[in-house]
Every structure is written in structure tokens, then in C-alpha cells.
């Protein structure tokens, strides 16, 4: 370290030459700063935000599958297309299951806030059962399609359909596994801070699953039906 450099006052107080134009905006403070001066955020905010970023990355992954499906929607290779395969009542039922489960998941979040062990478990259980119903319906749809010779190996369109819907189904399955673990943890450990953080993450996950389903049934089934 050298001590003999000529020091300019400005080099110390405004080394990056950000200027003092921001002074008025920032309540008369001297130095231009930008935002976010509060120091490290609380663990709750950190975990919530981190999980939000993860969910956004998951949405980007889904968008790659969606892009593939959008490109391949007409690549039926002489095989069945959407119109030949989709059963609107089944899809409507699946949508209803997931939407109601999203609602009950939200109610479980309210119950968590009220620290009611009973209602949390009740609403989580209903959410789980609805999720299972959704998966069962979807499995039945898939099995039916495979029986008809319209499995994912038949054409690129069917490959992309099974992939994008299946990816969503896998996420629902993982969510159900997580749900079961959460129910056990809340029962055994109560409403500790780390459990509360996990409940926040689970709620966001389950709601985003429904958001993806909205996009899915719109793009894949409804728009696909029209072709």
C-alpha cells in the first residue's frame, strides 16, 4: 500500500463520478446510491425470493417444451391430431380439480397464518386428494391414447404433447410428494420459522402449477383442438 498518492477529496466521496443529481431524489443525502440500502433481508424474504427465481426458471423450462409443441403441432405424420384425440369433458374435469386444489392450498396458507394445525392438515389433505384425482384423470387419458395407437412414439406431435403434459404431471407428482412431507413435518414439528418458510414455497409452487396448467390447456388442448 502506498501513502504518497495525491488525494482528491472527490476520489473519496464520489469515486465513480455518479454526480450529485440524485441528492434531491434521495431526501437531500449527498451521495448517489441507487436503492436497496437496508442491509441483508430477513430469511423469510430471502427464501421466498429465491424460490420465486427458481419458479421463474422452471417456467422458462416449460416454455422450451411449449415452443417445441407449438412448432410440432402439425407434425402428425399421418397419425391422429388433437381434434381426433382430446376429450373436452376430461380436460374440463382436470382443470376444475387443479383450480379447486389451488383454492384449498390458498386456504391452507390462511390456516397457517392463523396457526391452526387442524385446518392446515384438512386443507392440505383436500389439496392432495384433488391433485391425485388430476393425475389419475391424466393417466387415464394417456393410457387411452396409447391404447388407440396414439402414443408418444407415433408422431412428433404426440411426442411433444406427451412431453409437455407429462412434464407438468411430473411436477404435480413431485408436488404431491412434497405435500405429504410438509403435512408430516407440520404435524411433528409445528409452526417453526423454517416450516413457515417451506409452506410459503409450497404455496407458490402449487399456484404456479395451476398457472402452467392454464397455459397448457389453452395452448395444447383448446387451440390444438381447433386445428
Amino acid at each position, binding site marked *: 500500500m502506498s501513502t504518497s498518492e495525491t488525494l482528491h477529496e472527490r476520489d473519496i466521496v464520489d469515486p465513480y463520478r455518479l454526480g450529485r443529481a440524485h441528492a434531491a431524489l434521495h431526501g437531500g443525502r449527498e451521495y448517489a446510491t441507487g436503492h436497496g440500502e*437496508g442491509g441483508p*433481508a*430477513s430469511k*423469510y*424474504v430471502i*427464501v*421466498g*425470493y429465491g*424460490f*420465486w*427465481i427458481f419458479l*421463474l*426458471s422452471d*417456467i*422458462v423450462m416449460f*416454455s*422450451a417444451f*411449449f*415452443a*417445441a409443441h*407449438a*412448432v410440432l403441432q402439425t407434425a402428425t405424420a399421418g397419425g391422429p391430431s388433437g381434434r381426433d384425440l382430446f376429450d*373436452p369433458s376430461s380436460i*374440463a374435469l382436470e*382443470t*376444475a380439480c387443479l*383450480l*379447486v386444489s*389451488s*383454492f384449498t392450498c*390458498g*386456504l391452507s*396458507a*390462511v390456516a*397457517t*397464518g*392463523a396457526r391452526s394445525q387442524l385446518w392446515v392438515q384438512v386443507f392440505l389433505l383436500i389439496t392432495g386428494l384433488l391433485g391425485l384425482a388430476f393425475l389419475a384423470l391424466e393417466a387415464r387419458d394417456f393410457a387411452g391414447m396409447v391404447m388407440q395407437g396414439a402414443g408418444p412414439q407415433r408422431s412428433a406431435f404426440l411426442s411433444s404433447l406427451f412431453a409437455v403434459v407429462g412434464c407438468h404431471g411430473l411436477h404435480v407428482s413431485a408436488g404431491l410428494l412434497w405435500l405429504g412431507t410438509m403435512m408430516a413435518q407440520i404435524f411433528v414439528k409445528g409452526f417453526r*420459522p423454517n416450516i*413457515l*418458510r417451506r409452506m*410459503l414455497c409450497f*404455496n*407458490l409452487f402449487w*399456484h*404456479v402449477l*395451476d*398457472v402452467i396448467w*392454464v*397455459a397448457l*390447456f*389453452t*395452448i395444447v388442448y*383448446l*387451440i390444438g*383442438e*381447433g386445428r
Partner: protein
Amino acid sequence: MSDENVERDDIAPGFLDSPDLRDAVQSYVIGFVLASLLTAASFYVLYTHLIWGPGIPVALAVLAVAQIGVHLVFFMHITTAPDNTNNILALAFGVLIVVLIIGGSLWIMHHLNDRLMPMQEMMQMQR
């Protein structure tokens, strides 16, 4: 619920800033009702002749976006308040990426497919 989120100028996504039980439940009930209506509308649009044929995909897209908005606001409590800015910015970044990927891929693949030699001609060249 409010003791989990200490600072006032930065809220975790998904956190509802209200200790009142009624408020909290109300948010989910309104969201559920709206989402159900929008879903029903999507199916209705597709299976009836309310909307002119070629306009159906657009109508469905609009309804889907609206329903996603309902989910964001009423279920995930993502609002445009200043304490939610970071969450909205992250979401906006994600949306931008999704638009670029899906839109870009569709545009590029459409051009590529357009200019791809038809299979018949290609097979004739093989002979």
C-alpha cells in the same frame, strides 16, 4: 403472518400482508370465482360460435393471460405496490425470456420449415 416479514419495503412473493382472516380468505374466494368464470369462458368460446372462427385462438390467449393475472394477484399476492418491485421485476424478466423463446422459436422455425425442400423432391434427388 406479519411477524415473518420484518421489513416494510421488501415483501416476499406469496406473502399476504394482512393479519385479518376475513381479508385473507376473501382474496382467495374472489380469485377462485374469477378464475372459474374465465375457465368456463374459455371452454364456452371454443365449443360455441360466440367468437368468429379465426379469432378463437386470440380470444383463448386473452382469457388465459387474464386468468394468469388473477392467479398472480389473488392467489400469489404479487401486486404493483413498491414493496413488491423486486418480485415484479423478476417476473418481467421471466416473461421477457419466455416471449423471446416461444416467439423467436416460432418465427425462426416457421421460416426454416417454409424453406425446407418438400420430402418428395428430396427423395427424388436421392435416386
